């Protein structure tokens, strides 16, 4: 190995730069031979330095993944360079579903349907195909799924975590009181 004196934060920056896509914290830890706590701390440090006016990058940090991206403030400048066509139009129904998943996710389809009052199977599928919502197995219920917004969604919103959405706390606690105990009845 010839890492010279480059520290863990530097190593993580290089990994995220090469990988491009969201990468799991576990893989970062294994590559750097650090533990996940050390990786999380280094990421916090990196995130902090990226606030600087001289830095053009930002970090999106999810529950177990992280991605290096351009700073949202530089959106207009960078968009001129990116060839990919962004799928930006949201229908009212898509917007409604995304709002629920963003503020209340990860949550089950039953919760989303409970709040919207409509069957959401197709809308969720549509949002998954667009890469704005993803689902994973529900740890609470075998065979069930829970839905959450993706890094791509957050990158479109100019935030680096759902928690940064305005009024995030208010909606989650509101939903907690109102839904509590009822969702199973659906």
């Amino acid at each position, binding site marked *: 190995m010839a890492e010279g004196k480059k520290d863990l934060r530097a190593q993580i920056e290089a990994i995220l730069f090469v990988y491009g*896509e969201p990468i799991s914290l576990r893989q970062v830890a294994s590559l750097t031979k650090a533990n996940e706590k050390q990786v999380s701390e280094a990421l916090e440090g990196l995130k902090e330095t990226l606030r600087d006016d001289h830095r053009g990058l930002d970090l999106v940090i999810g529950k177990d993944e992280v991605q290096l991206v351009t700073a949202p403030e530089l959106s207009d400048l960078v968009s001129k360079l990116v060839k990919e066509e962004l799928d930006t139009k949201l229908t009212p129904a898509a917007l409604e579903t995304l709002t629920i998943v963003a*503020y209340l996710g990860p949550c089950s389809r039953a919760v989303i349907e409970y709040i*919207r009052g*409509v069957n959401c199977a*197709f*809308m969720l599928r549509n949002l998954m195909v667009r890469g704005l919502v993803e689902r994973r197995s529900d740890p609470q219920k075998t065979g069930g799924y829970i839905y959450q917004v993706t890094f791509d969604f957050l990158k479109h919103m100019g935030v680096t975590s759902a928690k940064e*959405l305005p009024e995030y706390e208010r909606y989650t606690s509101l939903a907690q009181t*109102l839904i509590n105990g009822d969702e199973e009845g659906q």
Partner: protein
Amino acid sequence: MADFKGPLEKLLELIEEKQLEITRLNLAEVTSDFLAYVAKLGGKVGHREVADFVVVAAKLILIKSHALLPHLAPSKEEERDMAELEGRLRLYKELREGEKVIDTLWGKHVSYGKTFLSDIPEGFYLSEKVTPEQLHGYIKDLAGGLVELQKMEEGEVKMVNLEEKIKELLGWIGQRVQASFTDMSKGKQKPEVVVMFLALLHLLKDTNISVEQDALFADIKIAHNHG
């Protein structure tokens, strides 16, 4: 269909049109309007969408009936159902504010990622053996999933629920009405009850349910004769 929101949106709209708060009494107030709207919906949207409206209509009818017949104490389950619709509508209204937030932020400040492993020299990187039989196994499953998807799109799955829901709703109405219509005919609210049932009747006609139709209308007729 993608632009079509749903029953709670409509309900909220009716409440807000009259500049009312979300209370149980005010929900009763807009019930007839809601049913009239659902009755007209039949031809315009699919069964799946109508079904979503019928579910909410059922809860509204419950609320309305108790508003009209205050001496009938709601069962525990009914009480829960009524409170639930109120709570859901409040949450829905709150989230509509969140929706505005997302709509405003969406696409304004976008962050961009970098291409995955952009510097890799071209080559063939596969360390395990992949066989045609393996792919055959996958394509079989995928084709099965595709068939299911088509069925879902045709609405077969949801149709069953719609029929059940309407049956349940009518059973409930029939029970309540028979039990209390004589009482009610003495009261002043009778015309309102009639409007409600007429709207419901329309709704049923338009949803075009074949299986239980005769039985369902028989129920309705009993109610109608009494009125």
